[in-house]
């Protein structure tokens, strides 16, 4: 509870300020109370001193008066005139006494009083002459004081008598020398206290006798009435100086030495302490005005400060929460206004920073969006590149497949399988055209080569089997071989050109920038191809001429073969004869050996001869059989050769036609090369179209290039294969030579026999 309050005070500037002001006010009140207390204490002391002093002074004054009046009375009572008893003389003396300047204050008359008759016989005041005081109730008459002597003086209590309209006090002294006679000074009590100054505002002085009646009182009507104070207080004040506050009054009392009286100075407390009340009122007023002023200052300063701070605090909170549109305006030009201005600047700065940050963020967002867009575009480009790459790969694959197909075909062709064709049904137009051109070319080559090969075979075989006259055929065969070599060379060159074309195509695929050049190169290559074709054509013409010779020679050889055949039949007959001889010799030898056995020992030598003859006969028979056999073979072969030579002759005629066709085909090749040229232009166009994508597909294109290079290499292999084919063709030539050799060998073999007309027939 207490700590909660403390926390609340600590947490609130307004409460702190209010608390501080309350403390200041409390301090003011406390100081005021202290001042008031000190003032009232001081005032009470002053009042007490004033009242007490006043009472003492008056008591002293009364005492002095009493002494004076006693002395005067005693002195007057001793006057001889009074003791003379003469009425006139006494009256004159009394008048003199009453008129004396030295008469004490308040003495209004002097009486000549006769004690026993209780009668005022003579008086300075005629009104009292003859008055009986006892009847009037004067105490000196009703209760006469006792005197110690003529010098003694008695002072009566105050009293009233009907003859006097004021309270009276009598001073009685026996007249010296006249028994029973007294001099009485009659004192107007009121005059005793008339000159009592007001010691304190509103104070009143009374004299109270020991019986509790007023001896003197400002209110003369109250003289001789009962004192309304407390008995104890009266007793105390009769014996000593007394000060007391009682019943709204303050009182100081001082006893009178010369009489059983006490002088009391009374004052209303309110009046005595009026100054204190005024001081209290003034202090309270001062405190209240201070409180009012402090309240105003505190409330205005506190309220405006607290509200300004709350406003700023709330705005700061709002700013902290991100609301920068908050209105920060205290409407003040003091430090709070400055603070608000600082807040505004801070907010503006924040706002600027924030908007900058937002702008930056928006820009970043935009940049991100752009990046995203670019990324998407890149993605798209990548996809299109991918697609292009796929297409390129597809194309490359197609190209590769085509190349592989071409390679396989060309390899097969190089291996001799001239029946192989490439699949020209390609999606790639240029490749398809190349394929078609290749196929066309291969058709032509196959036709040519097949014809030439068959022709060479026939020549070779014919040459082998033709003895003697085969030399011409062999020469012709050699020529054919040479021609075939040339054709082969042409074909190789063709293959090379094709390889180059393949390379160009490869280059075409590899670099779009080089397409034009490559196409130009391709054009050149095409021209070269055309030249090569031209060369091939010339070679073909030569081959045709040679073939004509071969055909003639073959015809002659065939005729020679026929002659050889008939001669071989003659040889056969001879061999039959030899065989019969050998049989007969054998029989003879058998008979000889039987005879030799009958003769015995003498016949042993003969038997040996017979055995040898028998052996020779058997060898001859074997040789004859062998020869017959071989002759039969040879005869068959020669017959075949003759047939084949005729066939060869026909074939050469066919070959010639075929070579003519080849020439025509080569013309076609020229056209195809031209087509290839235009196709290359289209390839370039296609490559140009491809160029946009090709920049990102360098790798793929490189790959294609690699593949193309591989293709080129394989094309080289194809060329090599073509070379091998050429070599194979030359081997055919060699075979023909071998055949010639074998023919020569046969010729030699036949030469062992006496061949007829063999020399001129076998060449």
């Amino acid at each position, binding site marked *: 509870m207490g700590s909660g309050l403390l926390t609340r005070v600590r947490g609130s500037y307004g409460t702190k300020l209010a608390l501080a002001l309350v403390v200041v006010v409390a301090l003011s009140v406390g100081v005021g109370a202290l001042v008031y207390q000190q003032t009232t204490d001081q005032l009470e002391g002053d009042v007490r001193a004033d009242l007490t002093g006043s009472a003492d002074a008056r008591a002293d004054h009364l005492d002095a008066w009493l002494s004076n009046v006693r002395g005067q009375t005693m002195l007057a009572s001793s006057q001889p005139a009074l003791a003379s008893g003469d009425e006139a003389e006494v009256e004159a003396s009394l008048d003199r006494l009453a008129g004396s300047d030295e008469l004490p204050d308040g003495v209004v008359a002097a009486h000549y009083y006769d004690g026993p008759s209780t009668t005022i016989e003579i008086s300075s005041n005629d009104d009292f002459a003859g008055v009986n005081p006892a009847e009037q109730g004067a105490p000196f008459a009703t209760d006469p004081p006792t005197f110690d002597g003529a010098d003694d003086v008695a002072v009566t209590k105050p009293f009233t008598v009907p003859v006097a309209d004021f309270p009276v006090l009598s001073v009685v002294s026996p007249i010296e020398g006249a028994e029973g006679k007294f001099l009485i000074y009659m004192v107007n009590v009121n005059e005793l206290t008339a000159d009592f100054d007001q010691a304190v505002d509103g104070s009143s002085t009374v004299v109270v006798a020991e019986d509790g009646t007023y001896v003197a009182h400002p209110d003369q009507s109250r003289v001789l009435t009962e004192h309304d104070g407390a008995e104890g207080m009266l007793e105390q004040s009769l014996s000593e100086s007394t000060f007391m506050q009682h019943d709204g009054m303050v009182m100081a009392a001082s006893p009178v030495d010369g009489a059983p009286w006490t002088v009391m100075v009374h004052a209303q407390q309110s009046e005595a302490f009026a100054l204190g009340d005024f001081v209290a*009122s003034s202090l309270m007023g001062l405190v*209240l005005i201070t409180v009012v002023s402090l309240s105003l200052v505190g*409330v205005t300063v*506190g*309220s405006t400060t607290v509200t300004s701070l709350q*406003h700023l605090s709330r705005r700061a909170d709002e700013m902290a929460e991100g609301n920068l549109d908050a209105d920060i305006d205290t409407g003040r030009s003091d430090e709070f206004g400055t603070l608000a201005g600082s807040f505004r600047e801070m907010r503006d700065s924040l706002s600027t920073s924030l908007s900058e940050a937002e702008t930056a963020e928006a820009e970043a967002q935009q940049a991100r969006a752009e990046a995203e867009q670019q990324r998407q575009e890149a993605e798209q480009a990548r996809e299109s590149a991918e697609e292009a790459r796929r297409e390129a790969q597809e194309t490359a694959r197609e190209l590769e497949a085509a190349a592989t197909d071409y390679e396989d075909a060309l390899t097969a062709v190089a291996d001799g399988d001239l029946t192989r064709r490439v699949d020209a049904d390609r999606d790639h137009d240029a490749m398809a055209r190349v394929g078609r051109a290749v196929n066309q070319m291969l058709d032509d080559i196959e036709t040519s080569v097949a014809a030439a090969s068959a022709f060479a075979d026939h020549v070779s075989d014919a040459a082998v089997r033709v003895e003697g006259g085969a030399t011409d055929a062999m020469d012709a065969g050699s020529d054919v071989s040479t021609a075939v070599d040339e054709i082969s060379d042409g074909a190789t060159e063709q293959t090379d050109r094709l390889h180059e074309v393949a390379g160009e195509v490869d280059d075409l695929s590899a670099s779009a920038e080089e397409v034009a050049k490559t196409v130009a190169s391709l054009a050149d290559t095409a021209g070269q191809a055309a030249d090569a074709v031209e060369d091939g054509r010339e070679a073909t013409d030569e081959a045709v001429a040679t073939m004509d010779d071969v055909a003639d020679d073959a015809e002659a050889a065939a005729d020679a073969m026929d002659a050889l055949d008939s001669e071989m039949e003659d040889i056969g007959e001879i061999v039959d004869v030899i065989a019969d001889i050998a049989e007969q010799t054998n029989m003879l030898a058998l008979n000889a050996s039987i005879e030799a056995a009958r003769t015995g020992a003498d016949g042993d030598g003969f038997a040996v001869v017979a055995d040898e003859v028998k052996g020779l006969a058997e060898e001859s028979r074997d040789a004859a059989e062998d020869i017959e056999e071989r002759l039969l073979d040879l005869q068959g072969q020669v017959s075949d050769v003759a047939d084949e030579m005729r066939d060869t002759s026909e074939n050469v005629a066919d070959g010639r036609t075929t070579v003519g066709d080849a020439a025509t085909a080569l013309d076609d090749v020229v056209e195809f090369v031209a087509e290839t040229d235009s196709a290359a232009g289209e390839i370039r166009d296609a490559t140009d179209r491809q160029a946009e994508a090709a920049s990102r597909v360098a790798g793929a294109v490189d790959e294609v290039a690699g593949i193309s290079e591989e293709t080129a290499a394989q094309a080289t292999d194809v060329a090599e294969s073509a070379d091998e084919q050429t070599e194979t063709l030359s081997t055919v030539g060699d075979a023909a030579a071998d055949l010639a050799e074998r023919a020569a060998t046969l010729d030699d073999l036949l030469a062992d026999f006496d061949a007829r007309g063999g020399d001129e027939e076998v060449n």
Partner: protein
Amino acid sequence: MALETWFWVGTVGMIAGTLLPLRDMIRYPSHRRYDLVLAGITGLAAIAYATMGLGLTATTVGEHTVYIARYVDWLVTTPLIVLYLAMLAKPSRRTYVWLLLADVFVIGAGIAAALNPGSQRWLFFAAGAVGYVVLLYGLLRTLPRALGDDPDPRVWSLFVTLRNITVVLWTLYPVVWMLAPAGVGILQTEMYTIVVVYLDFISKVAFVAFAALGADAVDRLVTATATGSSASMPDPMETPAATDAGDDD
């Protein structure tokens, strides 16, 4: 110095305080209603003080003198102060009514206590104190709520300042009254007069002065009311019949 001197001092102060709203009434015609109320507060008080300065309406009750004009002044001007605070907060019409009734009750109880010499006056004093607690609740709770959670900071600042001046200074009146001759009597008549004149001066002239200083807040209030829907807001001009009543005095 005679009491009349202080009354004349109060008169001059109140007249000086009236000049500000009169000037604003010319300067800002848009919130003349507000300035009229402010001018009523000090203007009527000036009339009351002039009346007392002329020694009129002095009545002796018991042992002390009571100036009826002072209580009539309070009976009229304190509702105007409450009205002005309410016009800043713009509460419901009901709130206007019970706030003004509470205020009139408090002053009425004060008049009854002042005119009653016997100890009965303390009963009236207690009744007035209870009424004052109700009025305090209205000023410290109801009106701030009427301003809403997020009031215009200038209006809020002005309201809080004026409200606090009113609450704190008004709370001093019963204290002064208890200390006055009519109460325990520590304050003597002249000092009581001085203190009350000063209190009156502060609670009225300072109030009016701060209100005039916050004229821009009233501007915002008037603008907001003019632009916003004023259907739920009672027109302050309808309520202050007190202004006319003050003129009749």
